């Protein structure tokens, strides 16, 4: 076993390096990803190592990045595009949803679209507008895309490589508030398939589930609850589309209660989908309604209010208490 300790940003960097070493058709595209290494330094050193022919500092145009990545994929390349911040993805939204997502269907399988779009997302970093949002539901709603989000350095290292190896387009959401904390990475053994949901902490009374940075909040909530004598099971969703239902249903069958948490607004969201599906498939196991703890259905507020907007451990525990009160 070979364990290395590194932050999530470096784990993605290591995963990208490995994928580029393994397959000469993998190339990186994005704004400021060359000598600068990206605004979060995720691609640091890769331009020097692989050259500007494989790490493309592109013009500042998101639709151009995605659209030309599509052409490159048609030519046999496996582009990995970086969107600088999630709030800047919308100029590329048409190329992602109307072209990238549908080209394999439109070609009736005659071509694949092995493109990864890396998207730093989420709050907790005190940034200005358009730099703290969680737009993953838009993409999960679009057939033809796969959507994932790692929460740990180990998952980040493996999931980026699995996403690049996928012949389908993958939206790879990186929880930017988790870029810096370090964690252990097993660089020899891949723990789980790309689309598996993981049990992050076992418990017996209430199941809580989330993805990305929210998993950290859920683990904090479980710690606090344990001190108060309540056993919470924490699930790390990892894959937003498709969703790995069986571990979620198994957990709900065990605990009878489910709280779904996310930073994104709750209306028509990943949490809505989980609540609806669990209700359909585990109705007789539920002791209480599935509850959602989410961002408000408002624009992401100015940063001084983000701690009010973003669900924290207390808001998760408030929902846990409501679930237990049924």
């Amino acid at each position, binding site marked *: 076993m070979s364990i290395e300790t590194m932050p999530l940003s470096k784990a993605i960097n290591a995963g990208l390096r490995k994928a580029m070493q393994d397959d000469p058709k993998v190339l990186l595209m994005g704004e400021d990803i060359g000598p600068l290494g990206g605004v979060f330094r995720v691609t640091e050193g890769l331009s020097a190592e692989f050259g500007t022919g494989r790490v493309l500092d592109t013009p500042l145009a998101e639709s151009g990045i995605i659209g030309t990545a599509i052409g490159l994929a048609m030519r046999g390349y496996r582009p990995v595009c970086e969107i600088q911040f999630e709030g800047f993805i919308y100029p590329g939204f048409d190329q992602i949803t109307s072209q990238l997502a549908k080209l394999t269907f439109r070609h*009736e399988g005659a071509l694949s679209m092995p493109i990864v779009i890396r998207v730093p997302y989420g709050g907790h970093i005190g940034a200005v507008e358009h730099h703290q949002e969680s737009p993953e539901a838009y993409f999960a709603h679009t057939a033809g895309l796969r959507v994932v989000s790692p929460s740990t350095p180990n998952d980040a290292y493996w999931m980026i490589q699995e996403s690049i190896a996928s012949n389908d387009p993958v939206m790879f959401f990186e929880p930017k508030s988790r870029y810096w904390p370090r964690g252990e990475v097993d660089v020899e053994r891949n723990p789980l398939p790309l689309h598996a949901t993981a049990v992050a902490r076992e418990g017996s009374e209430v199941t809580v589930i989330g993805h990305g940075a929210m998993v950290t909040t859920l683990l904090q909530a479980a710690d606090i609850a344990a001190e108060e004598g309540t056993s919470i099971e924490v699930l790390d969703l990892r894959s937003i589309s498709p969703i790995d239902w069986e571990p979620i249903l198994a957990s709900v069958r065990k605990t009878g209660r489910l709280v779904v948490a996310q930073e994104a607004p709750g209306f028509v969201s990943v949490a809505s989908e989980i609540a609806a599906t669990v209700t359909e498939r585990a109705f007789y196991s539920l002791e209480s309604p599935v509850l959602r703890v989410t961002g408000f259905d408002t624009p992401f507020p100015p940063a001084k209010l983000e701690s009010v907007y973003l669900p924290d451990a207390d808001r998760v525990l408030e929902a846990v208490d409501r679930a237990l009160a049924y």
Partner: protein
Amino acid sequence: MSYTAATIQLLSPEGSLVDSDAGAEYRQYIDELTDDQLREFHRQMVVIRAFDMEATNLQRQGQMALWVPSLGQEAAQVGSAFATRPQDHIFPAYREHVIARIRGVDPVDIIRMMRGVTHGGWNPAEHNNLHIYTLVIGSQTLHATGYAMGVKFDGASGTGDLDKDIATVVYFGDGATSQGDVSEALIFAASYQTSQLFFLQNNHWAISVPVTRQSPVPLYLRPSGFGIPGVQIDGNDVLASYAVSRKNLDETRVGGGPRFIEALTYRMGAHTSSDDPTKYRTNAEVQFWQERDPIARFETYLRSLGADDAFFAELAEEAADVAADTRKRTLEVVPPPNEFIFQNVYSEPHPRIDEQREWLAQYEASFGSDA
């Protein structure tokens, strides 16, 4: 917006060769064409017009949801298509019926798309690199540019070998020039110095909005701001379309950087079968372009070279046969099976798709064998 002093024209609307300084550098490409090649240009224009008119009729008779006529734009398309070489890749918009046909696509595959049985219609790899239609305006310009970037990274262009270096051609219209994607494609093409030809068919109307609303200056000037040379041609002159495309394609394929051609043509029919051009344009304008018809002038030219009545009669018969065959095979097109909905949404297995496919099969089966 019509012909300007800069418009390259090699064959006049009256059907005689034009001797001009501006056209001089392109004349050699015409001089190299054989009589058989010239007749093939005409054959393709006449046949596709018959096909196109039959398709319009089929739509009017309820056999297609929509038809997108190419009537009037035959010369711009035929000339540029014959200027490509076999190794080239072509990204059409959705009106390039004769280009598709020249590259080996069965035009009934285009009808299948409009008849609601496919969103694509053919595999580019099996049809001489003719990529499928793109319906969102301008999107394909970025795909073409990315493809050309890949060609360049592969070292498959810019070597100086005209028979191997790959050029990528993308077709788009005057309306598309207002789309951000087209500007971004020009930017990426210029930045990466792709071997690429931007071929703009300015047919003067984006549905009901005139080209003057898209641009106050001639569109061939647009790319100069991106560092890409542009040239304007008489798009109803198949010789100009061929020669100017041939020259620009061969210059870009060997590494001369991206090129841009604005072909001035006119959409003689409606934008699609869903619109009514009498609401927004004048008879005088239509008449102006009627007098500059691409096929009529080329027939005059071919007659001056010795083509006789028998040639044109035979061609008319062939065109009528293609139209009849199109009608027959259109009526034979059947819907795909339900299973089609779930196929190829993803390249790799996907549990949600599998569940829904299974559900639908069980639901259908629940009606019993009589259903």
